[in-house]
């Protein structure tokens, strides 16, 4: 089998979360059940209608570019990309060709190996989405129909360099991109509804006899889930490898053009859509109906002021300032903005990052999953949990006691009792869960237990460590709320003196 490297570049398409479309005031909403209701003369491409740029969409684009470390152009313009298709009512797509609003950026994310991966970006540009052709799927060959609700939706195209080396990297890249876009709030990134979708350009570099031979590039279109992206690339790598071994065609051979394939999730294979006979000629030219956009420093500063902490910076802060492991930081941040904000709020109250991380990534995640609740619905708010954990941090409660309180709070919530941080102290009192820090009291119980268990005490004194456990257990039984560690140490001290 040939020695090879997989080469992948992704084109990510993101619909922006604006109220209205890119060049008209029609609502920007996913609405497949009522076709052609979110339309007007502009997005229908009626004669005489003219586009006007939605500045909000442009602002969201700038914000996204900042998050993707892209360089922002101070002057950008609009071009027409021309081709005929029924979902394209004007016969051209208003897009950006040679002067996109941003170029040269990167996205970084952690690999499972712990290695930091950087994927460079060539550019991001803003364009209008097309409508949707709806074909008769019954096989009876009825007419195809066109829904233009989507036509004119603001769409960002983010193009990466071919820096991605595996299907898994491609998925991680897209996951990081999605997290970033959700964090800054520019898109709902709903992949089922098509607000985040991607095309993958895949080929292989075959290493043979000291030579590196690139195979023809295949573009896999319209991948709309992380799973399909990964599976499609994995399939494609195997397919291209087999083809290489059979046909030995290289990139650039006249009989090996760039081809476009689609992914069939039912069969788990990619299917040839069309060969590209040379590059399609889109006859780009500057759109004479729109004026170029000049971006001012003030505008950029205003947008910069609205930026929240990016996921990569948040992970770094968790590791560097709160002492979390890279793994914990990743788990918290990758849950999304809402979860990380909950965590931040807990830390702010209890002051212990690791403790808060353990509780949020284990207890809170488990409970919200089991209860099928969002964080907003979850009854134990960050304020309640933070207050509870601050008692643990101050040794007023043991971890075990805190778990009991946590469970009791949830039980009360399930009985539709209002819960608040004030309930914590009441539950602690009712259940006698307070940590007994009065060493005199512990001492007295230890003395009594040792007296009742002469044999075990002698074994411990003789160096039999396994005899210690039952003694600790008996003390703990009599002393609810005592810290087992403290009890254990006091027993050791007593029996070794």
């Amino acid at each position, binding site marked *: 089998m040939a020695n090879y490297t997989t080469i992948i570049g992704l084109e990510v398409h993101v619909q922006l979360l604006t109220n209205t479309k890119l060049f008209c005031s029609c609502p920007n909403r996913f609405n497949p059940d009522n076709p052609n209701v979110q339309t007007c003369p502009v997005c229908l491409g009626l*004669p*005489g209608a003219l586009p006007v740029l939605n500045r909000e969409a442009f602002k969201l684009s700038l914000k996204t570019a900042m998050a993707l470390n892209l360089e922002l152009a101070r002057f950008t313009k609009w071009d027409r990309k021309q081709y005929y298709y029924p979902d394209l*009512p004007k016969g051209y797509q208003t897009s950006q060709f040679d002067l996109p609003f941003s170029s040269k950026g990167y996205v970084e994310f952690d690999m499972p190996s712990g290695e930091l991966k950087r994927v460079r970006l060539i550019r991001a540009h803003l364009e209008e989405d097309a409508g949707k052709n709806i074909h008769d799927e019954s096989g009876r060959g009825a007419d195809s129909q*066109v829904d233009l609700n989507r036509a004119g939706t603001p769409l960002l195209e983010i193009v990466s360099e071919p820096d991605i080396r595996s299907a898994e990297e491609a998925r991680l890249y897209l996951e990081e991109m999605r997290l970033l876009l959700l964090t800054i709030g520019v898109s709902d990134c709903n992949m089922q509804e098509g607000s985040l979708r991607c095309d993958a350009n895949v080929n292989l570099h075959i290493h043979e006899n000291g030579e590196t031979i690139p195979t023809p590039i295949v573009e896999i279109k319209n991948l709309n889930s992380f799973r399909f992206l990964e599976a499609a690339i994995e399939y494609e790598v195997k397919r291209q490898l087999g083809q290489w071994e059979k046909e030995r065609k290289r990139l650039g051979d006249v009989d090996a053009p760039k081809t476009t394939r689609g992914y069939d999730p039912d069969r788990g294979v990619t299917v040839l859509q069309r060969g590209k006979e040379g590059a399609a000629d889109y006859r780009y030219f500057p759109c004479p109906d729109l004026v170029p956009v000049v971006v001012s420093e003030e505008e950029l500063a205003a947008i910069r002021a609205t930026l929240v902490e990016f996921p990569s910076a948040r992970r770094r802060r968790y590791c560097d300032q709160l002492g979390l492991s890279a793994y914990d930081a990743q788990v918290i941040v990758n849950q999304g903005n809402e979860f990380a904000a909950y965590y931040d709020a807990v830390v702010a109250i209890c002051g212990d990052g690791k403790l808060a991380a353990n509780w949020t990534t284990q207890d809170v995640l488990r409970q919200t999953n089991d209860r099928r609740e969002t964080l907003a619905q979850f009854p134990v708010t960050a304020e309640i949990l933070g207050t509870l954990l601050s008692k643990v941090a101050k040794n007023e409660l043991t971890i075990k006691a805190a778990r009991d309180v946590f469970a009791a709070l949830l039980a009360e919530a399930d009985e539709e009792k209002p819960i608040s941080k004030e309930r914590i102290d009441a539950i602690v009192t009712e259940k006698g869960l307070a940590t007994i820090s009065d060493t005199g009291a512990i001492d007295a119980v230890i003395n009594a237990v040792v007296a009742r268990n002469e044999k075990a005490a002698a074994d411990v004194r003789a160096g039999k460590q396994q005899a210690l456990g039952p003694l600790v257990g008996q003390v703990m039984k009599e002393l609810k709320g005592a810290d087992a560690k403290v009890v254990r140490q006091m027993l050791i001290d007593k029996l070794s003196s």
Partner: protein
Amino acid sequence: MSTLMESTRELVQRLQSGETAVSLTQSCLNAITSRDAAIHAFVRPIADGALADAASVDGRRQAGETLSPIAGIPIALKDNICTQGVATTCSSRMLEDFIPPYDAHVVTRLREAGAIIIGKTNLDEFAMGSSTENSAIGPTRNPWNTAHAPGGSSGGSAAAVAAQFAPLALGSDTGGSIRQPASFCGVVGLKPTYGRVSRYGLVAYASSLDQIGPFARDVEGAALLFDVIAGHDERDSTSVNRPVPKCWDTVNQPLTGLRVGVAKEHFGAGLDTEVEAATRKAIEVYRSLGATIVDLSLPHSKYAIAVYYLIACSEASSNLARYDGVHYGHRAEKFSNMIDMYKASRAEGFGAEVKRRVMLGTYALSSGYYDAYYLKALKVRRLIRNDFDAAFEKVDVILSPTSPMPAFKVGEMSDDPLKMYLADIYTISANLAGLPGISVPAGMSSSGLPIGLQLLAAPFEEERLLRAARMFENATDWSRRSPELNH
């Protein structure tokens, strides 16, 4: 005897002192009914709507409302200007059934001001042409001599005013399509500065050149109509937000110290001797009015036609891509697949000149040709503008013939598109440079056809342009002549 012999100001006064808009509108409709069969200025008159609108204006006037001076005046619209609920065909088979669900911005302005929209006028299909012969419904005739063309592409609007079917009309000017037919038909035609009048609802031919403008019997009429349609519209991104002067109020104020530029490039080969003589005479008129005549050069104007046909056709090839038979407009009945549907619909829906320009533009924008054609044309366009910027440092207006010849005969040039293109030589530069320009009647040929004089001004100087044109009009009687009308 027609009721439209008077000047625009007399017409306004008549309406303000008792004549009803209904009676004026009715007399226009009667004229169309009795005489338009010979001229064919209209694609369709709008009789019922016009009379209802006129009655409503009369009601408002009787109720004591203060109305715009244009209120009650009938106006004809070139049929590439969208009118809600009324077919807007662009004189193309492609759009013969297209009924816009909205009014163009200029139409909204006219309705608000109380102007009476009396009908839609013929044009070269999608405004591509200089004769109004390239129309799917057949050519319009010149009211001065029906064997001759009215010019184009706004030939229907020019002929409607010349034939006294309507005192005012709107056209659109992409390379001279208002000024050239105005000169052929002996009326006044104004192309405003690019960006002065909203293009919202004007069916695009070449977006960076198209501009809507008025036709009238005199300069005052052009000023009146310009005042109504000019001004910013946020629905057109290329519409410029700057104040619009009240030209109707100032048009009769002569300019003192007027500097009139005369460019040697405007008196070159191919210029008809009678047109040249009329233009030279006009120079003397200005001199006698106290103007200073300044000789100029516009060295890049020789490239204007080549640049124009590259840019206009490139934009047209893109603007007309939407007529594909999918969503609206003509769709072929017989086709075997999607590509075939596109081909057949467009082959059947478009006429020869439209196809020629779409093909030219598609070629010019193609990969490998873009830099040599479109991009180079944009650069030369800038040089042409620079020539004018330099010229307007020295002069207020530039005077030239509007067209190198009086109206040619119908059919005379239809086999030679290049010759027809060359007839736009004096008007095209203003579109490339975005300047305002006006054509005013300035003579008659020995065969009894009108000759037009063109004045160009710096961007947004319409007010001074109209005043300069009005000075000439008041000093001569060319605007007061009318063709003989066969009743």
